[in-house]
């Protein structure tokens, strides 16, 4: 089959970093081509070259066999290449139709915007994507993440894109939205649109892609037909080493209850939540995005305290009205969004790691620099953080290493209870298995861990017990031995949706 887009020997460097080194990549008409690699492997740079954000230092880009050079994103658009970045680039105060036709609105004879035609055509495009019940006159800001993404896809199609690049499109989606997205992607493929699909989730590659290309450290590792490869092979290609087990949860001695929550109420987000964490135990909290999982964790940690209910730490009834109080009770919280709740980007690694224990590393008023540096060094060693040292600015670290810094900050507080919300989201596979190994080790040393995750294999692999939340309350509990993906998914999605869930 003829390649519609071909990248040949592409190199690109930034000050101090060779981001891409003679990389090959090609996309055929009507295929879904997955692009895999750890964070920092060069995927983002590659798609930014294809979409005209960056220009390559050397190498050729061929579009339908002809050499092209995109000097701007606009030039790439004009050539039929549309990109949906992780952060959706929509205008929240404008309507769905206005967003879809931003920059190329249909005009009347007099040059004014033809609002009627715009709405009609927006509706047509959405219908052609099998998207129904989305009012094109609504403001985009009022839509769910899933719907916003559909608007982005419609926007790409309104510009007659022949090549659609999607950067981790499922990272922020709930399961049901993921299934819908897959349907749309397959629909587009049938129409001959080529799709470049970037994801950290291997399952998605096998469910969706025809071919897969793996990058590692800015270099091309190989391309495979998905039908002819395996999980193990892809992981090997990505990390250059064999990972026998992605989720190495080790057995730990399970002790006394450390955290007990009874009838926690926080309407309308959650209600009647009761759970128990014991020392040495990892409890997985599964559920769709929006089921109230994160809100329960934030209530326990005092970020948004619950309206009513009982929390006990080591048997003692406590009131937690602020994160500071939770911290003093030995509770730690690794947030879902490390950008807004975890890291202080302008600060150094050392300063981030000591943030939760400033009073402990201070002598009187003053922060003890040496103790602080030792703390940071210890975190770097313990968590294997790839940084130039304690003085590195955290903004310069990769996603996985940033996550480790947040984890390091909380481990420095020597907690008894660790609440982790999506601990490995947006983290590459190597770092992911390291974080899992760490959690396992922490549980062995007697920590009680509550792990919220949207990835069922992670939940299954790491948890001693699994709790499932749906519509704001806990609806099911499974022991490690008896849990199956199908049963958990069914509980997450409610009974009727169970057959669909099983395929997710």
């Amino acid at each position, binding site marked *: 089959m003829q390649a519609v887009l071909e990248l040949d020997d592409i190199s690109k460097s930034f000050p101090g970093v060779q981001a891409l080194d003679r990389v090959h990549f090609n996309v055929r008409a009507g295929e879904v081509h997955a692009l895999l690699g750890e964070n920092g492997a060069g995927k983002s740079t590659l798609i930014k070259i294809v979409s005209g954000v960056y220009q390559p230092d050397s190498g050729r880009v061929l579009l339908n066999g002809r050499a092209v050079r995109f000097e701007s994103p606009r030039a790439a658009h004009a050539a039929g290449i549309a990109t949906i970045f992780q952060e959706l680039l929509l205008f929240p105060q404008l309507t769905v139709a206005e967003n879809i036709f931003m920059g190329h609105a249909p005009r009347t004879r007099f040059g004014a915007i033809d609002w009627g035609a715009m709405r009609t055509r927006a509706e047509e495009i959405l219908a052609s994507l099998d998207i129904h019940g989305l009012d094109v006159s609504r403001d985009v800001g009022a839509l769910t993440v899933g719907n916003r993404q559909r608007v982005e896809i419609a926007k790409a199609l309104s510009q007659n894109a022949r090549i659609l690049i999607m950067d981790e499109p499922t990272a922020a989606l709930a399961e049901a939205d993921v299934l819908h997205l897959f349907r749309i992607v397959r629909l587009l493929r049938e129409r001959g649109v080529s799709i470049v699909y970037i994801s950290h989730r291997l399952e998605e590659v096998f469910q969706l892609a025809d071919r897969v290309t793996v990058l590692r450290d800015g270099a091309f590792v190989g391309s495979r037909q998905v039908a002819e490869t395996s999980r193990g092979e892809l992981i090997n290609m990505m990390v250059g080493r064999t990972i026998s087990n992605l989720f190495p949860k080790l057995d730990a001695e399970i002790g006394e209850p450390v955290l007990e929550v009874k009838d926690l109420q926080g309407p309308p987000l959650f209600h009647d939540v009761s759970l128990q964490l014991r020392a040495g135990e990892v409890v997985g909290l599964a559920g769709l995005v929006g089921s109230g999982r994160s809100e329960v964790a934030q209530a326990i940690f005092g970020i948004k305290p619950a309206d009513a209910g009982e929390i006990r730490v080591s048997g003692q009834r406590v009131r937690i009205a602020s994160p500071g109080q939770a911290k003093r009770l030995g509770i730690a919280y690794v947030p879902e969004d490390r950008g807004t709740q975890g890291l202080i980007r302008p600060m150094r690694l050392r300063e981030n790691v000591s943030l939760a224990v400033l009073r402990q590393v201070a002598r009187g008023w003053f922060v003890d620099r040496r103790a602080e540096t030792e703390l940071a060094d210890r975190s770097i060693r313990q968590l294997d953080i790839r940084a130039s040292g304690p003085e590195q600015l955290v903004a*310069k670290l990769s996603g996985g290493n940033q996550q480790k810094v947040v984890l390091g900050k909380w481990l420095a507080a020597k907690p008894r209870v660790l609440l982790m919300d999506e601990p490995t989201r947006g983290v590459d596979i190597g770092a992911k298995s390291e974080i899992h190994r760490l959690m396992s080790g922490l549980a062995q040393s007697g920590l009680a861990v509550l792990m919220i995750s949207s990835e069922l294999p992670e939940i299954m692999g790491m948890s001693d017990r699994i709790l499932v939340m749906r519509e704001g309350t806990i609806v099911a509990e499974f022991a490690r031995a008896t849990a199956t993906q199908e049963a958990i998914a069914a509980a997450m999605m409610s009974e009727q949706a169970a057959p669909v869930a099983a395929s997710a």
Partner: protein
Amino acid sequence: MAAAALPSAPGRRLLGGLRRIAGSQEMVLFLCIVILLVVVGTINPRYVAERNLHSIFLGNAYIAVAAIGMSMVIISGNIDISVGSLIGVLATLSGSLAVDGYPILVSWLAPLVVGAMVTAFIGFLVAYLRMPSIVVSLGMLSILKGGLISVTGGAWITNLPVGYALAQMRPLSIPMPIWFMVVLTIGAALWMRYTATGRAIYAVGGNAEAARVSGISRRRTIMTVFIVHGVFVGIASVLFATQLSVIQSTVPPNLELTIITASVVGGVSILGGTGTVIGSTLAAILLAAIGSSLIFVGISPYWLRAVQGFLILITVLADLIRRRRQARAR
């Protein structure tokens, strides 16, 4: 990511530290001051005569002192544009107390207390009622400015008692304003860099939500910053009030802009979270030195404001380029 994964040896750390100092905003400002003194001093030697250097430092030390407090406020992610008006009010208060026969110590200390009360009020509205500091201090600017002119009518305060002129004293034959500028800058720099409270100020300015989740109280930190700022403004007011033998009871025009300019040119990010008070003091000196140099090379001093404007744009531009480079290097 090609970042080296090696554990860094002490030697490498020292080297990295030196490189950071060499490329820092403080060093750039220091070099600018030196170059300015050398170049303008070569053109016109009277520029570097002791008399002129004194007038550069003495007449502007109060701006450097106020810029210390301002820098802390901006680092915490806030701003105070009422600072110029507050200095006018506090200077008038100080002079009036002295003329009315209160002990001189009272007339020196009252501005510190009242300054801290006013900024504590601003801090309260910002920290507890979550009002944006730019709006709160805009309101405060008008209240203070309007209140001052209504009460005093802009009259000159004269007949200040003997012994009141703090800024004209010279302990160890070094003028008092220089003592204040140097000691307060060093003290504030140490406080910001080495204390837990200083760290909390940077953390809240860098990412208030992450700081809160880490157990740092945003409210307490912002209250502290504003109160400390008020004390610095109070000290600046006394230096300002006592540098001449009269005080005009109005608000010096554009004073808040000069002070904010010193902070920004000193490398304090207007977005919060980064910057140092040493930078803002050096920038205050640089701005004063530039103002004086214009006269000595025969350029109308009216250009000073334009030069300040250019400096702001250049500083922010340089900062932007540095950030872009960092972002791309990822």
